[in-house]
């Protein structure tokens, strides 16, 4: 399994033909947690939206499980084994937690109940809430549901966008290790966008730093942690001067 799950080469992505992300090349291997870091407006979310097909790439190639996704509709890309936990969580507020999970499940009856159990094992806090409407959950519970729903489809590649958005730091501290566990237990690759740099690098294997749509740093989590000053510079734009 030396082949990368996700391999992006020279990607240009953006809105209305105007590239926000330029010449980006990243890859994610099985069982690996990769952090995509960078300041606001760096193009992190744009990158994830392009990977899952909600945005069409302007140039460059995205390979998922060894084959290109160019021109595929997002629902088809998703069925190939990609789960995307979106920034807005994209929950179905009118449906119950159980129904939300059910929509994520794939396969036959047996595998479906198994993968639902697995997802709930990761987030046991959801068990007592199964019959509650998703719209009534707290922010943390909603995020857990979004993650659990993504997991329920047994993805080979998981994209997590700003899991910590609007959550209390203590919840973030508890949720991030679960991402690590997902990668370790299921062998899936995880690409996560995160603003809590320290926490993210604590669980990630590797990291990429984007600034103004371009890759400014990459390396193992350890290397990035050691290069704290450079990292700060790319956030605050100090390096540009």
């Amino acid at each position, binding site marked *: 399994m030396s082949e990368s799950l996700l391999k992006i080469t020279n990607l240009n992505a953006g*809105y*209305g*033909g*105007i590239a926000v992300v330029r010449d980006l090349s990243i890859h994610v291997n099985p069982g690996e947690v990769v952090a995509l870091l960078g300041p606001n407006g760096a193009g992190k979310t744009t990158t994830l939206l392009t990977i*899952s097909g*909600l945005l069409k790439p302007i140039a460059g190639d995205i390979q998922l499980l060894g084959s290109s996704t160019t021109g595929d*509709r*997002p*629902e*088809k890309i*998703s*069925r190939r084994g990609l*789960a*995307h936990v*979106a920034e*807005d969580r*994209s*929950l*179905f*507020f*009118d*449906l119950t937690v159980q*129904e*939300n999970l*059910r*929509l*994520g499940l*794939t396969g036959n009856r047996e595998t479906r109940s198994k993968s639902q159990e697995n997802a709930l094992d990761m987030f046991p806090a959801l068990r007592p809430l199964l019959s509650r409407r998703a719209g009534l959950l707290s922010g943390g519970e909603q995020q857990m549901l979004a993650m659990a*729903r993504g997991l329920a*489809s047994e993805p080979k590649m998981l994209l997590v966008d700003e899991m910590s958005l609007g959550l209390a730091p203590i919840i973030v501290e508890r949720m991030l290790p679960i991402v690590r566990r997902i990668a370790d237990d299921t062998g899936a690759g995880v690409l996560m966008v995160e603003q809590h740099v320290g926490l993210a690098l604590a669980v990630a294997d590797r990291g990429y730093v984007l600034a103004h749509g371009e890759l400014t740093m990459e390396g193992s989590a350890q290397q990035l942690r050691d290069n704290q000053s450079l990292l700060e510079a790319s956030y605050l734009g100090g390096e540009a001067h």
Partner: protein
Amino acid sequence: MKEGIAYAIMGLGYGGFYALMAIGIVIAYKGSGVINFAHGAIAMYVAFQFSYLRSEGTFRFPWLDPIPTSFLNLPVTLSLSNGEPINFWIAVLLSLFTALILGAAIHYLVFKPLRNAAPLGKVIGAIGVMTYLLGVGSKHFGSNQPQPDGVLFPDKLLKNFLGLGLGVSAEALALAGVSIIAGAVVWFIYKYSRIGLATRAAAGNEKGAVLLGYSPDRLALFNWLLAAFLAGLVGILTGTVTGALGTGKFTGLIVPALGGALIGSMSSIPLAVLGGLLIGSLQTFVGTYVSGLSWFPAWLYSGARDSIPLVVIVALLFLRGKSLPIRGNIEEKRLPLAPYPKRIGKYVAIFVPLGFLLSAGFPGDFLFAGLNGRWGMALTTSLIAGMFGLSFVLLSGYVGQISLVQISLAGIAAFLTARLMSHYGPSDSNPFAVGGLHLPWPVAMVAGVAVATVVGLILAVPALRIRGVQLTVVTIAASISLYSFYFDNPKLTSLQGGSSYIIQPPTFFGIKFGSTGSQGLTDNPKFALFCLIVLAGLSVILANLRRGSSGRRFLAVRANERAAASAGVNVAKTKFLAFGIASAMAGVAGVAGAFQAGSTSAPMWDYGVGLSALAFCYLGGITSINGAILGGMIAGGGMVATFGNFHSPGLYSYIPIFGGMGMILTAIIHPAGQASIFQPLMRHFGSWLLTARGKEWGVVLRRLAPYLIGGGIWGAIGINPWRTDTYNRTWMIILGILIVLFVRNIVVQVKAAKAANALPDTNSLQEVTA
């Protein structure tokens, strides 16, 4: 009271019909966020299809052969059994198959391309489908009004039902039962099946559904098929419950059904079924039992039955104050930009005299010889339709309120003006004449328009709390109940037996400028001048509104009511202002229309007339003044239609069909309407006439010359073999040039759109640069 209960139970037949329709409407809303005004039309088509299959064994495809030639014919009618009735079950299958074809076609051809359109675009799409089906329906099935046989327990009457003393037909009860069963099945699908769950999920958050691997298009297709299937079921099962079939009548039954769907908030199936049953039952209870009681006021008698859905809908939406579930679409396009009007004075200075010249005609000249005849009539019709269109531009284009009640306001103004102007009561020569105050026309007109404005303001009250498509539903219900309540109510109008008010030609300092009669299709150039001046005046008022601070407030409210409010815009005041002025404009148009006709009667102000007026205004371009005027030109009986009729007399019956297709295409391809295609032309045309220089003409002519020559040649020799009319071949040259220029224009537009395709909102951007 026992009798009353019996009538309420009888009403369950209609109720079951409404409930079945309501389920279909809710399904379509869940599936693609469309309030499907065409649902009744689908049921209508299938009902006729079934009836014809059962009576003469013919199957009719829901389309026409559009090319009037002897070759290249599309099959339209299939005779399956040499005029013999066809087997019942085969007829059922074929009818349901028709419904499914319609559902799939509506999905693929209309609402899939409109998936991310602005709400008004979807409303127009639905109205377009309805208009199309109505047109095809009346073309195929004509004015025939067959009485279908009962399907469920025909001819079985339960005498003295439940000891209430009256007989109730088993068919009515069975229809109610079917609606409950169908509701239960659909409810079960949405609750437990995966595709049902996914539909509900996508309705709430489309992005989420896509990310989980569900295709919104496929979900929408499933729901359209289900909805169309139910509409087909309604068409087959209606039997004797709704009486004789009629294309318009059947389509109009959508309103009470919408009431039922709204009771279910467009999302709950059980409540929608309950609502449909309730409305049907209340209608018969009030319309047959309560209105027969001694205390019931006679003036209420006519409108009581048709007002029930309105009362229920308004009470529900207004009192509950909860909005319908909004779809969480990935992207939703906004209405096209409302262009900033410029050089209004110049426009008026050029087009008013030009119009007058046209209408006065050049004596003996071959080109304009016809203008005193039918062209004059067509011109005034277009001008009046343009005035009416301006009220849509203000209300829907600028403020984003989709109101379908404008036609009734026009009618109110016309009726009151007519009543106030008239003098003598019934006489030997006209036993139906209605007497009045004999006021001079300006006073009567002002009074009539003022009352229309007040009514418009009252109807604006719901708009403070009800938005978007819900307002459309309320206003269409208001329009239908105003029709039976006022226009068609002899107790209020004193018009006996469908007669009309006669209007004396208005005078100006002794000069009679009234229209010279609709019978001979001639028109008075002075009346054309009057219409031109009024239209110009209304346009100037609207342009100034748009340019001033009110215009900015209008657009702010259209864009986002909350944001507008937080920026200090008084939303309620702004809406009232818009509704008031738009009502006054509609009123003026109504009075002008009555002047033109020389009389006015109820059918002029039917809601269907209003729908087609909105549709033509949208075709012209609902966000600009030019659009309204252009819409007037292409409206029924206007310049373009008369031109077409002139060349192919049978064309008239095709207008709804092409109108419907045009609406759908405009909504999909070019939401800014045809006006933006002609905008550059219009913009330069005025200036050119004043400062035309040979050089500029030369440049344009050189660029267009190949098209002019090519089109002319094609027209001279190419069109001829395709024709079935008998008109002069010279006209074909002009027609050929026009067609070629039109196609060129579209190609240019599409190319420009493609070049700007990457940009998110191409249409509005073009508008800016145009």
